[in-house]
């Protein structure tokens, strides 16, 4: 897997050298990133106490399993690393803290709400889309269940209801967009007892994150995860330890659709390449109309009524 990531940069280098320059994709990346309405969440993993209240709040807000709060007080779940599922849009995991073994590091994970998401770019019917505030939301009614969004997400977030034969849904955190419309906070942020989760405008949160790092350089490493990863994400993380050691993926700065979208645009927005090919083939058909030595000119343009 490590080779993989390194390989990717080589590929990207080669990619930019190809005719399909990634210029348009970069331009639109920036347009997205500077959306002033873009909301965000800053997760300070050094503040998280691993209480799992966010998991409980999420479960309630999204009508997931409906388990009582007791079920979320079981700390034995930390013995092994868990992943999100179709019934859990957020999970907290525990990682060792080499500096203080009594204070392990807890990391909450959920959809990162990318600024330039793979999932929305992949979805062929727009069932997943980026809202005006930057939340990546899902409309089950449109969905075909093709699961291309799951292939496209660099964080492996969208989960699928494989057990449902009739109306399976893609499941993931939608940034509590219905609660936001009612003027409420996302459920997890509302319930979190310490100040581990800060909701706000992404721009402000970035400033806050850097200020925190500046004023507390011993407490934090100098890296805000999500600021640049895959073109930027709405969820941002602060940590005391390298992110790769606590379950985060090491990803580059290129947004995942930066190769596919320019190709699609070249084909669709202009429509020229297919038309040009059509014309070229038509011209060839005309040029070669006399064919090879086996052709009987009188016969070639006619339908044979016999048989």
């Amino acid at each position, binding site marked *: 897997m490590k*080779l*993989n*990531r390194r*390989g990717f940069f*080589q*590929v990207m280098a*080669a990619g930019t050298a*190809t005719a399909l320059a990634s210029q348009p994709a970069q331009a639109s990346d920036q347009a997205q990133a500077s959306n002033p309405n873009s909301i965000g969440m800053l997760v300070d993993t050094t503040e998280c106490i691993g209480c799992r209240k966010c998991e409980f709040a999420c479960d309630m807000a999204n009508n997931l399993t409906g388990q009582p709060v007791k079920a979320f007080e079981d700390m034995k779940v930390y013995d092994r690393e868990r*992943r999100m599922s*179709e019934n859990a849009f957020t999970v907290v995991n525990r990682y060792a803290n080499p500096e203080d073994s009594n204070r392990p590091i807890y990391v909450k994970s959920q959809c990162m709400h990318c600024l330039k998401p*793979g999932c929305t*770019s*992949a*979805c*062929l*019917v727009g069932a997943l889309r980026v809202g005006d505030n930057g939340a990546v939301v899902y409309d089950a009614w*449109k969905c*075909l*269940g*093709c*699961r*291309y969004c*799951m*292939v496209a997400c*660099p964080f*492996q977030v969208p989960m*699928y*209801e*494989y*057990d449902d*034969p009739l109306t*399976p849904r893609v499941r993931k955190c939608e940034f509590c967009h219905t609660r936001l419309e009612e003027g409420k906070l996302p459920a997890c942020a509302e319930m979190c007892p310490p100040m581990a989760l800060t909701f706000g405008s992404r721009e402000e949160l970035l400033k806050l994150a850097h200020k925190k790092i500046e004023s507390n350089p011993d407490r934090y490493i100098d890296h805000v995860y999500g600021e640049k990863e895959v073109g930027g994400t709405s969820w941002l993380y602060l940590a005391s330890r390298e992110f790769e050691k606590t379950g985060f*993926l090491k*990803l580059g700065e*290129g947004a*995942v*659709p930066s*190769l*596919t*979208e320019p*190709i*699609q645009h070249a084909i*669709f927005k202009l429509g020229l390449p*297919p038309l040009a*090919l*059509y014309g070229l*083939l*038509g011209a*060839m*058909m005309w040029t*070669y109309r006399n*064919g*090879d030595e*086996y*052709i009987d000119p009188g016969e*070639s343009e*006619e*339908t*044979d*009524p016999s048989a």
Partner: protein
Amino acid sequence: MHEPARAEPARKEFWTPGVYALIVLAGIAVVIAIYRFVYGLSAVTNLDQEYPWGIWIALDVATGVALAAGGFTTAAALTHIFHRHRYEVLVRPALLTAMLGYTFVALGLTVDLGRYYNMWHPLMPSMWQGNSVLFEVGMCVVIYLNVLYIEFLPIVCERFIGAVHLPGLLARFNQPVDSLLRFLDRTLSRVMFLFIIAGVVLSCMHQSSLGGLLLIAPYKMHPLWYTPILPFLFLLSAIAVGFPMVIFESLLASKSFGRKPEMHVLTPLARLVTLTLGIYMIAKIADLLIRDAYVYLFDGSFESWMFLAEMFFGGFLPMGMLLSDKVRFSPNLLLASTTLVVLGVAFNRINVFLVAYQPPYAQKAYFPSLGEIFFTVGMIAALMLVYRAAVTIFPILPPGHKPSSRVLIKQEG
């Protein structure tokens, strides 16, 4: 249609032991499909949250589309656009395969889609999502499927004009249906070239886009296969497999209907394969060199072995064979070498969609379940059954007693 009709329905007993075997296999696939529709994908497949796509996508869809490429390479491009009319005997079988191939791709996809009843959504402009590669693939496949049906219509007309005998009460429609067929036949023969060119354009678009699908997962793909020119390689490999697939089928059909193989056209066509396959292989090797990805070739990993095997069995070996006159003139060796090319492209699609795809957090690697495997096998069996039925109903194959009818008739005339 442009080609003069030199085909007739195959006269051969339909019910053979082989046909019964195919029916059993197809029946199993139907049972699996019913099971999936009642109990869900998880009851039948090994798909999970990390591996959302399995062999139903890699084989039934991606390989199915690639192997149906004989339709646009042989039937449309070679014969109608470049007017290489000596290959006309191969046009109808290739067209039939493409039509059935794409139909079965659509059927396979229906079983794989979670909300198959929403399949029409991409056709609604309100839901169009032009950024999506899958959108383009879907649209092209739908339109192309219709183009293929239109291209097939003249064969239906030819079979039934003057021979419409509807049973019982429907008999009174014999005349109108006959007139309709005659009208269709006349109109289509004038505009068919428009559809033929459109078919080639659509094929080039979706054959390449199929390779573009995985470009959206740059962080998950193994560098041996992940390249910005993946769409181009998919197009080249589809072109490369088009002729071999047609040769492969023609030889199988000759065997199964006890005819003399059409070597007088297959041998020159095999020569063209060395060109198309050669171009594909050169592109693939050049890509490895330019991206410096060859460093992964011999690192002893599972992926490196899969890549080497794909290149050797699907590329170098058949290429070496086809370069030899002996192979090209021998039905059995030609069958063996084209089988290798066909399997090689299937191997490539499996490699790209399943082996190269390495999602993070995967608990275990994906391996297809028995249900997935038997469904795929059953679909292939069903396709062969329909093919066999179609060639006994419609004039697809050349008349059996004159294997090289075209040339003979030419000389007689």
